């Protein structure tokens, strides 16, 4: 059974497979990245390596306050990237049968692999591959680079 980490972006709940996660850390001091897109508030020093931080809420088009309670560091095998989220809920086991297909809805559809219900709340299962692809597309579209 696969484990997913449930976290909040503003008021919306998202989940990410634990396998894609390296570690969850508290929001440290950001280092400003010159000429970076607006969704990148800065970079952090994670165990000696510099990781760019993506404001996932801003990237996915959520409005509201930018409060980065926690930072999810993605697995190094996937991508050297950290995601700033509002808050971490908990780790739950994911039942594959409970997954519902995601509605085709703009940019959200590109990053949500599926939707499942937990304790009466709807949670979007974040598609990390899709996210990275989308991120790369954006970076190519704007011509900006994203840090290594």
């Amino acid at each position, binding site marked *: 059974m696969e*484990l997913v980490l449930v976290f909040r972006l503003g008021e919306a709940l998202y989940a990410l497979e*634990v396998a894609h996660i390296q*570690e*969850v850390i*508290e929001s440290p001091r950001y280092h400003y990245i010159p000429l970076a897109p607006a969704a990148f508030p800065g970079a952090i020093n994670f165990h000696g390596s510099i990781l760019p931080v993506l404001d996932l809420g801003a990237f996915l088009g959520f409005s509201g306050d930018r409060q980065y309670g926690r930072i999810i560091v993605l697995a190094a095998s996937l991508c050297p990237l950290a995601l700033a989220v509002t808050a971490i809920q908990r780790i739950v086991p994911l039942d594959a049968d409970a997954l519902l297909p995601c509605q085709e809805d703009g940019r959200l559809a590109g990053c949500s692999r599926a939707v499942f219900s937990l304790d009466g709340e709807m949670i979007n299962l974040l598609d990390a591959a899709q996210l990275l692809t989308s991120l790369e597309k954006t970076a190519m579209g704007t011509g900006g680079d994203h840090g290594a």
Partner: protein
Amino acid sequence: MRVEITYKFVAGFIIVVGSVVFLNLLVPSLGIPEEMQQFVAVACAILVGLVLGWFFSRAFTANIRHLREAAERLSHGDLSEPVRLPRSSFPDETADLAASLNLVVASLRELVGTIRASAVRAAESAHGLSATSEEMTASTQEMANTVEQISRGAETQAEMVEKSSRLIREMAVSIDLIAASAKKLSASASDTARTAQRGGTIARNSMAKMKQVLGDVERNGEQIVSFGTQVQKIGKIVEVITGIAQKTNLLALNATIEAARAGEYGRGFAVVAEEIRKLADSSSDSAGEISRLIESIREESQKVQSSMQESIREMDSERAALDTTSSAFEEIIQTAVATQTKATSIAELSQKQAEGAKGMVAAIDEISRVVTDNAAATQEVSAATEEQSASMEEMARSAQDLSALAEQLLEAVRRFRLAPEQG
């Protein structure tokens, strides 16, 4: 030459006898017969006797007639003429009688004149007396009227005095009441002053107590502030605990992630990590509970502080009110003392007034007595005046009687005719 009748008779007899003798001598010488001589002598003697007697008687009778006429005139009251006898060379007792009669007439005339004058005077006096008595009666009547008026006036005076006495007695009673009221007022003012002093003392005590309470409240406020500080310190500690719990939670999360990555080998580790995470959650919940409690404590203590400040403000205003009350009590005390003084002086004045009223009552009683005496005396005077009036009437009657008597007397002596010049 006065010759008594006896002597005249003797003389006449002697003359007759002498003439007889003489004739007896004479006749023979005349040549008359003898036989005739006796006769002639007797005739001559008788003639002489007759002549002599005639003369003598005539004179005597005339005198007697005069006397009788005079006596008749006298008896008719005519005293105008004296008794005048024919002049005689030889007056006798008839002349004496005439002189005596004349004396009687003169005396009578004098007497009657005197009586008439006296009667006239008496009548005049009686008239005067009557008039005087009438005048006196009128005066007495007037006096009686006056006395009656005086008596009525005295009665009115007595009534007025009685009324005055009653009024003054009522006034005296009123003054007594005023004096009593003033005494009561004085006592009330004294009570008020005492009460106000007690009130002032109580107000001062209240002030002191309020100051004490204010101090207590301020100390309580300070204690609450320090309590708040302590609570805030607890809050800091709770924050630390919360941070630790969050970190623990995060660590447990990462441990779970790590255990998941380890796969089957990390299962037990994952269970432990889950337990740790639950503990951290529970710590976090408790810390949140504590934070909420601290928050509510802080709110409560703020409320307490604000209500304390409100209390302090109210106490300040109450203190001001107490100050006002205290000064009001002072004013009340002063007013009450002034009232007491005035009431006391009113009471003293009323006392004096009451004494004066008593004196007035005594004086009015005296006046009443005098007036009563006056009325009695006036009644006596009235009675005396009536008696006097009666006496006066009697006197007037007597005077009238006297006048009538005088008239009668005059009437009685009127028939006496006196000399023409005398009426």
